[in-house]
């Protein structure tokens, strides 16, 4: 066996037996990485002791979650879930309406001016970091408690991403249909309607449905900052340590998420 091994060693010495320097470098990198992770944990005052103490409490909380209880008012929770869906739906629709013109402007094939294109593509990146919750915090401060701020927050948080997806869908559409219409002397609205729309509409619709699914998840937490929906009910019950009701709400919510995802998947597979 040694001849084959020797030959392999000659051909690729570093693959068979890494040199000592390679190993040393690798060791130093690993130690440095571990040390910096440890330093970070220390800076955040994360200790095993705190972890253990909190863990014990958490297990007690989880124990208190069974059996789930509806708190004698299940309709209130159903209503809150309905409100959460309403926020998500309206927010998605508003975001789609705003993203549509932006997507057209952002598509290289529609508007070819490079400066405009660059500005359009990079500006949304600036806002990508601001999550719906941050917007909700802002809008609740501006408009007071209630779902109004939540709807606006969801809509505004979605516009950059949705506009980008729309722009990409439009860019990827086949040019030939539009060219044919142009050659036949069709005005711009007709070109959009018969050349572009049939190609991009199913794709855009299914991307919008993805955003609706995501928004239902986002909407569930907006209540924490006072923007209505199921998040408000959940936070209230966690604050008063009513964990049996918390688990009831979470189970109901997870079922709703699964139902929405299934329906949306059905529609998307029909669109494709």
């Amino acid at each position, binding site marked *: 066996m040694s001849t084959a091994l020797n030959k392999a060693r000659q051909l690729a010495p570093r693959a068979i037996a890494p040199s000592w320097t390679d190993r040393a470098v690798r060791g130093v990198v690993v130690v440095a990485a571990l040390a910096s992770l440890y330093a970070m944990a220390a800076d955040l005052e994360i200790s095993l002791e705190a972890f253990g103490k909190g863990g014990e409490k958490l297990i007690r909380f989880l124990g208190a979650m069974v059996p789930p209880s509806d708190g004698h008012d299940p309709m209130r929770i159903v209503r809150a879930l309905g409100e959460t869906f309403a926020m998500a739906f309206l927010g998605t629709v508003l975001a789609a309406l705003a993203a549509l013109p932006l997507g057209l402007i952002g598509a290289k094939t529609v508007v070819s001016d490079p400066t405009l294109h660059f500005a359009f593509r990079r500006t949304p990146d600036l806002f990508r970091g601001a999550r719906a919750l941050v917007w909700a*915090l802002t809008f609740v401060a501006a408009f007071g408690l209630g779902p109004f701020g939540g709807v606006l927050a969801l809509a505004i948080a979605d516009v950059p991403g949705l506009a980008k997806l729309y722009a990409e869908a439009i860019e990827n559409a086949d040019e030939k249909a539009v060219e044919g219409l142009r050659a036949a002397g069709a005005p711009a609205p007709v070109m959009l309607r018969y050349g572009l729309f049939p190609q991009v509409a199913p794709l855009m619709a299914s991307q919008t449905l993805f955003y609706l699914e995501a928004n239902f998840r986002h909407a569930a937490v907006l209540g924490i900052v006072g923007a209505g929906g199921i998040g408000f009910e959940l936070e209230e019950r966690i604050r008063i340590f009513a964990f049996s009701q918390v688990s009831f709400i979470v189970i109901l919510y997870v079922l709703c998420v699964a139902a929405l995802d299934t329906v949306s998947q059905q529609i998307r597979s029909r669109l494709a």
Partner: protein
Amino acid sequence: MTELPAPVAAFEQARRRILRRRRLDALLGLLVFSALLAISAQRSQFFGADIGGDPLGRIGVFLGRMVPDLQAHALLEGRKTHGSLAWWYYDLPLWLRSLRQTIEMAVLATVAGAALAALAGFACARNLMPIPAVRFVVRRALEFIRTLPDLIVALLLVAAFGVGPLAGVITLTLSTVGGLGKLFAEANESVDGRPLEALEASGAGLAKKIRYGVLPQVLPGYASYALLRLEGNVAAAAALGIVGAGGIGIELQRAITYTEFDTYLAILLLIVGMIFVIDIGSELIRHRLIGLGGKR
């Protein structure tokens, strides 16, 4: 009117039928959509909401309160001077510390989450885990974690672990496991099976198969996914502070509570800037990892 030839008539009929069905579908879809829209508008009280006068005016007033009262002549003066930049960013050292902590939370959670996700990814990959029951359980667990919104988990963990970064790190670790576990499993399942067969033929066990057959193929993909996740985790960590789970979000929440809206804007700008820088850095690294280095 002249009689159409039979095939043309049949074609016309079929076409009319298809068009009619399409129109019916579209109409039905439109009806359902409008109904949902109407119910949503009603349930969320979007149009009837009493938000105190005209909404545009409210936005204007609010934006006005967010813009700091900077004075051109005093811009570079010290902290005590009204209207200087230092006066606007009066608590900058504290905020920078909070920003550092936010990034640390994201890094720790991404590392811990990616490590756990790698284990989970092996445990639910069809080509590596021979026991179907384990695959099933791990997959369902990952799905469940993905369904729970971060902030709900954070609320619960803040109640258990107290206000501070620990609750945030655990929250982000959990959601990272949920997200990356699925992606890692998919990467594992799409590896080239031939090296695995060769290793198996030469008598390698599962650990050796993973080390020499799978890891060399999937590691660049793993790293790229993890970096993408890091970007998301930084943004999420910034928001988690709002429920008390550590990081810059706590300062954001404090500024809102004390109605210091200009301070709020100052911190918001810091967060947006931090995320922008991290996104660009991570994008550069990711493109190099997947071999796009020269193209951008």
